[in-house]
């Protein structure tokens, strides 16, 4: 068996989610190679080579891959696909974007967002916003999978795998990058943080999200939001937690002024400990909370910050 894991990175840093996808690959078992496609991404390759259990790192360093354009990256993966039984990527925006292209070009199904590996061809994945868990067997000879990183522990980093440079360059020429508008934050990544505090429509406006800042500072937490808070323009889209946003599973998740719609729960209910602060005792979020506090958030948040 040989498995290719596609690395998620920003040309400088490897995302820790890749270590988790490697864990999923190791659970399938076999030789694990990591592909780093990007530009000036040698340091990412070096980080990938450290991941425990990885046998080889392939680097495709070219401007065509700088922005992870799906048309170019999928063509690259396709060129080396013959060497692998299983091709995996993390179910983050890059993987979600290009992997189905790879699957279609290989004429195989993709199994998305796996949360467990039962065998080399059988995988477990949530469906219906996590309200049902499906066990799915792939009938194709080659498997294309995306992995829900929160479901796997990160592989360690005590390795020094061989790094091989690929000379393949494919620029499909039908898409180009125009610009990025990325949110700059000194806080930990939502997906990687061990504590997340999220605000919902109950926060009333973007300014009030400052009430979460002091608490997040004290706890080293990331800040998230519900769809309602994002749609209303309180905070940017990359803060949305949920079925169709980011999936998080921190040690502690604090939901503030969030009602607990199934779509929101889908993104956070695997958190270890859930705290809900809501003024409505009937809010469904209390049904999944380990600790619920019925309170007005405008009283509760300043007090919480003071007492931490």
């Amino acid at each position, binding site marked *: 068996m040989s498995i290719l894991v596609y690395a998620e990175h*920003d040309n400088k840093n490897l995302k820790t989610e890749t270590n988790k996808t490697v864990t999923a690959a190791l659970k399938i078992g076999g030789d694990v190679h990591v592909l780093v496609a990007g530009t000036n991404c040698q340091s990412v390759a070096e980080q990938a080579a450290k991941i425990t259990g990885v046998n080889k790192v392939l680097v495709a360093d070219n401007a065509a891959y700088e*922005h992870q*354009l*799906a048309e170019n990256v999928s063509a690259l993966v396709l060129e080396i696909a013959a060497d692998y039984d299983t091709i995996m990527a993390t179910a*983050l*925006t890059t993987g*979600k*974007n*290009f992997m*189905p*292209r790879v699957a*279609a070009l290989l004429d*195989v*199904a*993709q199994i998305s*967002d796996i949360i467990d590996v039962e065998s080399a061809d*059988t995988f477990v994945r949530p*469906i*219906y*916003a*996590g309200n*049902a*868990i499906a*066990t*799915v*067997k792939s*009938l194709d000879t080659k498997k294309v999978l995306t992995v829900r990183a929160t479901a796997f522990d990160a592989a360690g980093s005590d390795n020094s795998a061989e790094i091989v440079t690929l000379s393949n360059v494919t620029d499909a020429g*039908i*898409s*180009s*990058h125009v610009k*990025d*508008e*990325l949110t700059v934050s000194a806080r930990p990544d939502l997906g990687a943080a061990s504590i997340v505090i999220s605000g919902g429509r109950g926060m009333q406006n973007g300014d009030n999200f400052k009430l979460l800042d002091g608490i997040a500072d004290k*706890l080293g937490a990331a800040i998230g939001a519900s*769809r309602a808070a994002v749609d209303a323009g309180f905070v*940017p*889209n*990359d803060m949305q937690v949920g*079925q*169709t946003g980011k999936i998080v599973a921190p*040690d*502690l998740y604090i939901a503030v002024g969030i009602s607990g719609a199934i779509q929101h729960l889908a993104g956070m*209910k695997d958190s*270890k*400990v*859930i*705290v809900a602060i809501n003024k409505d005792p009937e809010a469904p979020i*209390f049904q*999944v909370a*380990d*600790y*619920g*506090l019925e*309170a007005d958030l405008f009283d*509760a948040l300043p*007090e*919480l910050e003071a*007492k*931490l």
Partner: protein
Amino acid sequence: MKVLVPIKRVIDYNVKVRVKADNSDVDLTNTKMAINPFCEIAVEEAVRLKEAGTATEIIVVSVGDKTCQEQLRTALALGADRAIQIETDESLDALNIAKLLQKIVEEEQPQLVILGKQSIDSDNNQTGQMLAALTGMAQGTFASEVVVEGDKVNVTREVDGGLQTVALTLPAIVTTDLRLNEPRYASLPNIMKAKRKPLDVKPAADFGINLTARTSLLKVTPPAERQAGIMVGSIDELVEKLKTEAKVIS
């Protein structure tokens, strides 16, 4: 410019699905069904392009049994011009759906295909990308803004770090995210008018594609229930519990 919008009939987003007692699948008997919310956003975007004079014709297509005609009619009431049902009783893998849609793309030659980024039942997030691959088109997934300019479309995408804008050569594929637009409601006169708009039914078997299943659903189980929690009476109590009982803060 012709715009093709593939749509899917799914469980209504307000309904919490139940798992069948024999764990063979979910139980959709007597469940309220609707257009997948992301597909509805796709229809709305096409209608706005038509209102802006960019699109000339909007074709909606759905793969499914007779019941999906209800969603096709809804899309017609929202402003699509005509509909195609690719008829099948089977629940097909995304790859096979994409192969059927590829045939429709070949027949209709749309300049833009707009799909939902994922359906809220299978949560696969695949069909648009697969269709792009099969047709050799560029893709702008998870779109929050779509601007057609000459022979290009600029798509602003919701990505993990914020927003990314790409320029795609037409014809191209777009998949919608939540912030692309807020879909309108169909008016009663438009619902009446939609009944007379053309709806073609084409059996899936007539497309000459091998539609053999690529995956097999072995079982479906309910998710693990969380242990019931407690209500705390004060912030002091909350902080105390988090420190000494849950031990998640120090």
